[in-house]
């Protein structure tokens, strides 16, 4: 035994005698993680969160969360002598007088944009592959919670520099709060510490931004990762992989090295972006005052679709009994996102209600094999993308010489037409792909080689596919639609007629599929 091994042994002994950790650690280190590029998206989220914590802590060392008026006397000449809040002045100070400060600000902001983008990409991966199914519904809901928190955290971060763009965002936020019937005005006054922009919001959102929300984040991310650990990772279908096992690399050493290395790669990519690409040049926006605004005032990308929805909303308000209800704000900014987020959170339960499938699933779906779900996903993406495009309509109009009015009208119309169209097209596409899979299994790959038969006709040679490939293409289940006769097997009338009819409809739509190739069919062809 070398001296190094001996000293490591001593430490391990010390810890184990006190915590009894060896047994648990042994089990944990033998945990297996399947390899797939899309499984790294969640890691991008976690790593960018760590980067946000690190860069954010750096920024707090100089940032002054105060709305106190100061006269700017820093190095940036075009703002010299202007009255501004201490928070804006200190952000300028971080940008121009702290070495590496601007870099850290840009790292923080790029990491936030990438954090949210990675969350969305990760969510789409989990959705399209059906990884949210039993037993992982809790983790899906935790994920939706993290996404929602991300919106709020991002909005607060965007507001802290207290530049003109921040303030414009907060003004809109305050209007959304004010639009809530009955209590909106009061919530707004309490949140801002008075009439907008109030006297207390910068210190308040600072505390929320750096303490409360990151705390919840940390707890939720820990729970999220621990559940993945405990429930073991899902895997794509492949040779030797079943619902009962998990095939992959053990934690030590490969997974540890790759995942650890990937953290530095993510950090490196974000640092690279921050070195070469400017983000939120607050010094150009100037200090916030509510009487000013810039053309092309946009939120960060993840809020862009909400802004787009607000822009395309019809001018609807109800004026009655001395009260005003702003449907033009409530519908796009609260009701529609509320429905979307609730629907997302409940989706695992909705799907299992439709299919009647209450079993555990650890093998992932190939998106084409669940056409209804895939189509629903593409439909939602289409909806959000159209809203997002309208959120940037003024930027599009300026850069591509279009008219904001025509962009607005085309998105207003297409938000109703294109998502259902996307649903239909995607579903058909999935079925075509299923058909192609079936052909591939039964008749093999086209080789492009032509052979002349004795009868004189030309036939293209088809090469049979490998056993592994054949398994991947046929291992999925093709559940039949539910059968819910009005009178059940005991001869009793089933309650909930309309509910059952809806469920039946959905179940039938969900079960539409091109029959996959079976072993029997293969045998028949071989014997042919």
């Amino acid at each position, binding site marked *: 035994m070398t001296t190094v091994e001996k000293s490591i042994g001593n430490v391990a002994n010390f810890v184990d005698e006190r915590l009894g950790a060896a047994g648990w650690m042994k089990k944990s280190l033998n945990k297996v993680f399947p390899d797939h590029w899309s499984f790294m998206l969640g890691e991008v989220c976690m790593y960018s969160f760590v980067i946000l914590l690190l860069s954010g802590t750096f920024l707090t060392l100089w940032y002054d969360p105060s709305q106190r008026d100061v006269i700017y006397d820093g190095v940036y000449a075009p703002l010299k002598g202007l009255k501004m809040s201490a928070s804006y002045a200190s952000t300028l100070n971080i940008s121009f007088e702290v070495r590496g400060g601007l870099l850290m600000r840009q790292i923080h902001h790029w990491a936030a944009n990438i954090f949210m983008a990675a969350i969305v990409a990760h969510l789409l991966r989990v959705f399209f592959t059906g990884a949210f199914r039993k037993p992982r519904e809790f983790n899906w809901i935790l994920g939706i919670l993290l996404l929602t928190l991300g919106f709020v955290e991002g909005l607060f971060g965007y507001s802290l520099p207290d530049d003109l763009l921040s303030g414009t965002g907060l003004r809109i936020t305050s209007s959304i709060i*004010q*639009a809530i019937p009955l209590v909106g005005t009061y919530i707004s006054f*309490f949140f801002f510490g008075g009439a907008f922009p109030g006297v207390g919001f910068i210190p308040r959102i600072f505390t929320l931004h750096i303490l409360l929300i990151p705390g919840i984040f940390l707890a939720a991310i820990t729970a999220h990762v621990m559940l993945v650990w405990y429930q073991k990772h899902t895997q794509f279908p492949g040779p030797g*992989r079943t619902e009962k096992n998990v095939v992959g690399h053990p934690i030590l050493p490969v997974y540890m090295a790759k995942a650890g290395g990937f953290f530095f790669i993510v950090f490196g990519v974000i640092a690279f972006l*921050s070195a070469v690409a400017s983000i939120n040049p607050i010094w150009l926006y100037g200090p916030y005052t*509510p009487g000013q605004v810039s053309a092309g005032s946009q939120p960060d990308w993840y809020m862009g679709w909400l802004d787009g929805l607000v822009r395309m909303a019809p001018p609807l308000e109800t*004026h009655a009994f001395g009260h005003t209800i*702003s449907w033009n704000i409530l519908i796009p900014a609260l009701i529609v996102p509320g429905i979307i987020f609730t629907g997302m959170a409940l989706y695992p339960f909705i799907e299992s209600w439709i299919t009647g499938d209450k079993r555990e699933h650890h093998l992932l779906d190939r998106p084409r094999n669940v056409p209804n779900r895939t189509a629903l996903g593409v439909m939602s993406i289409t909806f959000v993308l159209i809203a997002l495009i309208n959120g940037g309509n003024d930027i599009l109009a300026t850069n591509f010489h279009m008219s904001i009015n025509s962009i607005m009208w085309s998105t207003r119309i297409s938000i109703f037409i294109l998502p259902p169209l996307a649903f239909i097209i995607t579903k058909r596409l999935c079925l075509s792909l299923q058909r192609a899979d079936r052909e591939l299994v039964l008749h093999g790959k086209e080789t492009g080689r032509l052979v002349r038969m004795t009868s004189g006709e030309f036939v293209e040679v088809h090469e049979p596919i490998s056993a592994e490939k054949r398994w991947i293409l046929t291992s999925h*289940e093709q559940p039949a639609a539910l059968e819910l006769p009005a009178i059940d097997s005991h001869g009793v009338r089933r309650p909930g007629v309309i509910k059952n009819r809806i469920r039946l409809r959905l179940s039938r739509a969900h079960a539409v599929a091109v029959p996959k190739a079976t072993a029997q069919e293969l045998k028949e062809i071989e014997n042919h």
Partner: protein
Amino acid sequence: MSEVTNEIEAVENPPTPQHLPRAADLDPRAEKRAEQQVALLFTLSGVGSLMLIIAYVFIPLNAFIFIPVMGKQNTQQLTLGLGMAFSLFFLGMGAVLWAKKLMPETEVVNQRHEFRSSPQDREDFVKTVKDGIAGVKLGRRTLIKRSLGFSLGLFALPPILLLRDLGPLPKKQLETTNWKAGVRLVSDPDNRPILARDLQVGAVVQTLPEIPAGTERLLSDIAKDPVLLIRLRPEDFQLTPAKLAMTHDGIIAFSKICSHMGCAVALYEQQTKHLLCPCHQSTFDVTRGAKVIFGPAARPLPQLDITIDDQGYLIARAPFNQPVGPSFWERNSQ
């Protein structure tokens, strides 16, 4: 559970594929090469760190360097950033390459267990809970039950009440502005009173109510007081007599705070006489009293009644006759 599989006919699941040896597993030269590649990446990472240190210590904040495509860049920001990026990125790449090429990477198979507990455990659990609750005998202790309900019912109120002092009550703050009869309109930001005759047709001026010299404006006042003055040819107006009476010689004054979400509406198109809000593209027709002609805003911009004082300066003749800015529940919009 309904029958949902067609396992009987399924194609056979082939076994987990054999581990195929990599070049570095077989060929010592390939192994050496892989080792060198990893070492190179780690070295590059070190060079990156050195670059960061040098940039931090030696490069001044105001040095610039020309980079093709990007233009003149701040040297310190760029080198600090690139140094940091290299130092992190290549460290990560080195570790990954090491794992990929040289570490043993045989795939292993773990078995899963069903998450449902054994029937015995479940039964025991239910029994424990039941026994525990039975011991409390809540059903019999009515007095305790009722007083506990009373206590818990009130328990939630203090935390909410304690947040009461976060801000003042709205009172009439959203309904009122600092415009009063006789208050002069002064330009923003330099607080000069405005002579009506100084405004040409097609001119706009951003204004605020005059405040005594030496006093400071609150941001919350700037959030509701701004007024946009626009001069048109008087014959361009298509206003009701009441609204026309609120103008002065072709000069019309609107609240600059959008009736939709409170952005500053100030994109005035001189030719079409439309006002556009840059936040959500609500468009208002100035000739028709800022009537909404496009976009999500539901109400016209409130119009300020203006006239001139004896020196010819523009003044407000009356406060706004309705609340300015975005809607809120208590707003009487009828």
